[in-house]
């Protein structure tokens, strides 16, 4: 790909925004993270996440099936830690229990689906969201739709390699990393950030 200045910013970006990976945005290596399309040290991205969560009017976590079901050892502990993080940040939680398109229509007040995530974001006036425990493919599908049609700031806490299509993305997110972000949120709150 050509060298590009493409930035992954809050939208609405347009009718059909491109996949950031096709615009030259690369996934971070271990110990790194992505902030708005640029690779930064992981700690810097964590601070940015804490800041975004605390300064948003209506931050919401979207936990996916990889977090909602205790399908392997350690998931329940991780889920509890995510709940603690959401509570510390004063964020709501709207689950994404599966990926089937909801017909005849979704109830956007209580659920979100990767195929029409904008409906939930519009309905609840969500200005910052956190994807966690969502299979990577579905997260990327949803993150592009959100960037295209809403002004929501997207954060992806990924257990694998991260997401170019989120405005902030951590990779290899495990229990200690979730707890670290929670600590940062609590510290920033003490310092007066709201």
């Amino acid at each position, binding site marked *: *790909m050509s060298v590009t200045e493409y930035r992954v910013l809050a939208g609405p970006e347009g009718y*059909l925004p491109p996949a950031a990976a*096709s615009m030259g945005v690369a996934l971070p290596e271990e110990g790194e993270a992505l902030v708005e399309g640029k690779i930064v040290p992981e700690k810097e991205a964590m601070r940015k996440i804490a800041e975004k969560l605390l300064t948003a009017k209506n931050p919401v976590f979207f936990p996916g099936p990889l977090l909602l*079901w205790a399908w392997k050892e350690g998931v329940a502990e991780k889920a509890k830690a995510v709940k603690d993080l959401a509570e510390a940040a004063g964020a709501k939680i709207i689950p994404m229990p599966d990926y089937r*398109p909801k017909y005849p229509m979704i109830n956007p007040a209580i659920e979100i689906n990767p195929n029409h995530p904008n409906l939930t974001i519009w309905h609840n006036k969500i200005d910052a969201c956190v994807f966690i425990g969502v299979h990577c493919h579905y997260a990327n599908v949803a993150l592009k739709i959100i960037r*295209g049609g809403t002004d929501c700031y997207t954060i992806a806490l990924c257990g694998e390699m991260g997401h170019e299509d989120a405005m902030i993305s951590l990779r290899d997110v495990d229990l200690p990393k979730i707890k670290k972000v929670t600590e940062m949120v609590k510290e920033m709150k003490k310092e007066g950030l709201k």
Partner: protein
Amino acid sequence: MIDQRVVTPEYLFFEAPREKRFMTGSEAVREAIKRANVDMAISYPITPQSESMHLVGDLYAEGYLREYFRGENEFAVMSAVAGASMGGVRVFTATGGPGTLRAFEAFPTWAGARLPIVCAFMTRGVNSPLSIQPDTIEMAFMLNTGIMMFHAETAQDLYDMILKAFVIAEKTDVHIPVGVFTDGFFVTHTRDTVEIAAEDIKLPPYNPYCAPVPVMDMENVPVRQMRDPFVMKSNFISYATHASWQQEIMAAAERARNYVVKYLGGLVEVENEDADILIVASGTAVSQSREAIGMARREGLDAGLIKIKCLRPFPGEEIRKLTRNATAVIVPEFNRVGWLCQEIKSVMEDTGKVIGGPRVFGGMTMPPDLILAEIRRCSR
């Protein structure tokens, strides 16, 4: 069956001692699959692919594979392969020519479902009229299916690319199918020296729980869910989802570039890149070009070679940079449509210097003299 131990891909590819063996391309497929820790293979015969999957069947009989069967036809095979992959196993198959076209609908379906299937395509003519002879025209059809495409020049390439294809295809951030293409008969039915690793080592098993989509394991949550289509509704949301989905498949191929560099040493290989005349080729057209360049050198003519190993993702940036200062770019091909020439022109700034040919097809061989004639003409 020999007891095998699991080793890292890096050890198997780059560090393990290798033994030289004299074998056909079909036998090189067998040797690759023997070391690939494949769970399942499904076959349907078509010349010139039949021998390779027959040999894979022998591996099953020896105990190297957990399952193997012959499908009803190519469409059935490619559909069954999809089912196996959705169920979370490492799966392999092969076809060629009319078989490729008969199964065609399956390939974009594989990519769309993020299935890390590896399929070898032993290319041949596609029955216009009936031919079983070498021709790469089917690759023109495959370019926009969403699958990754490697093109093997030799039996050595075929062995290495098949093994590496599994590792690249199964990366979480990639996780799309890989087609390893090779020119039927020229590679499959000729013998060459191939360096292979010891047969008591194999790749690590596939871990479907690192997939970017849920594995359809009906016994385990959170994966007791189908990948439901959204095509049943006619509304903007459905269209936007499908568009975003397709973009994500292309993004997956983009992410694969780093892995192709790591495991294949790059999307292209270059010889004498500063030459005024460059030949850009893939598959066995590379071997013929190399011969022609040697002949040209003996005449005092200078030409360089760009061997394209990976066609999807396409090495656009590499081609653009490498050809920038060349005065002529010759693209020899084993098909009548010149799909590689079109690809190259699509990424170059000055397309006027691209010579689309020589081209042979229908089973014809490509004497190096044909390419040499173009080098001579461009040198005047």
